[in-house]
């Protein structure tokens, strides 16, 4: 699907940030995800929803370059030339993962260095890209801690002294400090109390809008999807069964499985 066919407006971005074609991943006989294709445009937030085992996390791992799919291609346009993320060198892929994109893990322990201070955690990506001015690194770390609503006085504390919600916010600051174009989030509010979730969701919503981030968010929580995403992909047994605008999919679901999902929640 190209936008030019239906809407040749030059004011819109000229090319998708991510073009996913035919991505499939199998575990022996079992399907992880099968033949997934879509475009993601700069500033768009895509939700992937489905039950546990529907293949959404497998897909995310393939898209983020953590796992290699058995078939398919993912093109990422960070510069003038699109990069095929599976055929570029591991070095280039690692560089991308530290700069132009970021991954927010469900468990903050997977995304943070637990024995490094909050400031060091946030500053690492800056030092990765070659920043060597302690004062400036610290200043930016402080700025980011405040943006994710962590008091500046906690900059020299280690993540293990933080609550779960704070750890998750710290992880987000650690990823966003390098101003990525694309962020992958795996159940970013999973495992948090409802009130803590609400705060985090609002923070993510504001950051995504203010930074013009493109994001792919895996969640089983339709309320999270409603609040954060522009578009939705519904997965079942490794296949995308329905996709479209988030409110279309949730308010007027066409596929039997989506109808089941949306009727199973109290109110979204």
């Amino acid at each position: 699907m190209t936008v030019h066919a239906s809407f040749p407006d030059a004011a819109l971005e000229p090319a998708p940030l991510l073009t996913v074609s035919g991505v499939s991943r199998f575990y022996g006989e079992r399907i992880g995800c099968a033949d997934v294709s879509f475009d993601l445009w700069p500033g768009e937030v895509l939700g992937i929803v489905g039950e546990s085992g529907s293949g959404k996390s497998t897909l995310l791992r393939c898209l983020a370059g953590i796992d290699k799919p058995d078939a398919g291609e993912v093109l990422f346009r960070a510069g003038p030339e699109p990069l095929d993320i599976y055929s570029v060198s591991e070095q280039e892929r690692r560089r991308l993962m530290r700069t132009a994109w970021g991954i927010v893990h469900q468990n903050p322990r997977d995304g943070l260095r637990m024995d490094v201070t909050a400031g060091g955690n946030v500053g690492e990506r800056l030092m990765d890209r070659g920043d060597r001015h302690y004062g400036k690194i610290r200043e930016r770390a402080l700025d980011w801690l405040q943006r994710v609503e962590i008091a500046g006085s906690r900059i020299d504390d280690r993540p293990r002294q933080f609550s779960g919600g704070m750890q998750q916010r710290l992880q987000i600051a650690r990823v966003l400090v390098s101003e990525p174009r694309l962020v992958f989030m795996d159940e970013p509010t999973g495992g948090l109390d409802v009130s803590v979730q609400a705060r985090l969701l609002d923070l993510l919503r504001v950051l995504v809008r203010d930074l013009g981030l493109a994001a792919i968010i895996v969640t089983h929580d339709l309320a999270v999807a409603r609040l954060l995403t522009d578009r939705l992909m519904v997965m079942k047994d490794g296949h995308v069964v329905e996709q479209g605008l988030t409110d279309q999919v949730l308010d007027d679901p066409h596929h039997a499985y989506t109808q089941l999902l949306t009727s199973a929640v109290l109110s979204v």
Partner: protein
Amino acid sequence: MTTMIQVENVAKTFTLHNQGGTRLPVFDDVNFTVEAGEALVLAGASGAGKSSLLRILYGNYRPTSGAIRITHAGRPVDIVSAVPRTVLDIRRRTLGFVSQFLRVIPRVSALDIVRDPLLARGASQGEASDRAKAMLTRLNLPERLWNLAPATFSGGEQQRVNIARSFVDPSPIMLIDEPTASLDAANRDVVVELISEARTAGSAIVGIFHDEAVRERVATRYLDITSFRKAA
């Protein structure tokens, strides 16, 4: 006159897969247009599908067939076949939806909710705040509530926040679903004024108004949708 909405041969049937594949036909062969500067009021008995039609115009419900051309940035775009990001762009710049219910976003203050569409369209922080405050004042929302999140507001207060958000910068097309349902007479008058002002300024209005008095003051034209009902 500029045609803002052109509905062509739209049909809609709901299929309930989890209830034995029950098919619920709603419309067949819907055709009409809406011009800039007019207020089209949808008429028909309760359950005739007025709200569904409004949602189809907004791109929220997907018609089974047909096209809906929305005049967006000077040219017609079919919202039915447009890709998601085009639909979002149409909604951001051209198409506003005013419902009776405010979707409360946790922790966001009433003032920020009203400022949001102005900021999204590129207004400065200062200008957005000034216009948002003026709108909340006009809708008689007490100033002490401005910086609170509306989760704890009464139904009428939430509704006024929602109306303020919608009319602080009226879209070229406004789709309005029962905006005055739980408002007192004074605030109802304000809403009627806001709609008339938007229309006079050139917006195309399509609305559903349960209150007959409101309906008569707002409408420049009626469309009875009963004729579009599909015989089941």
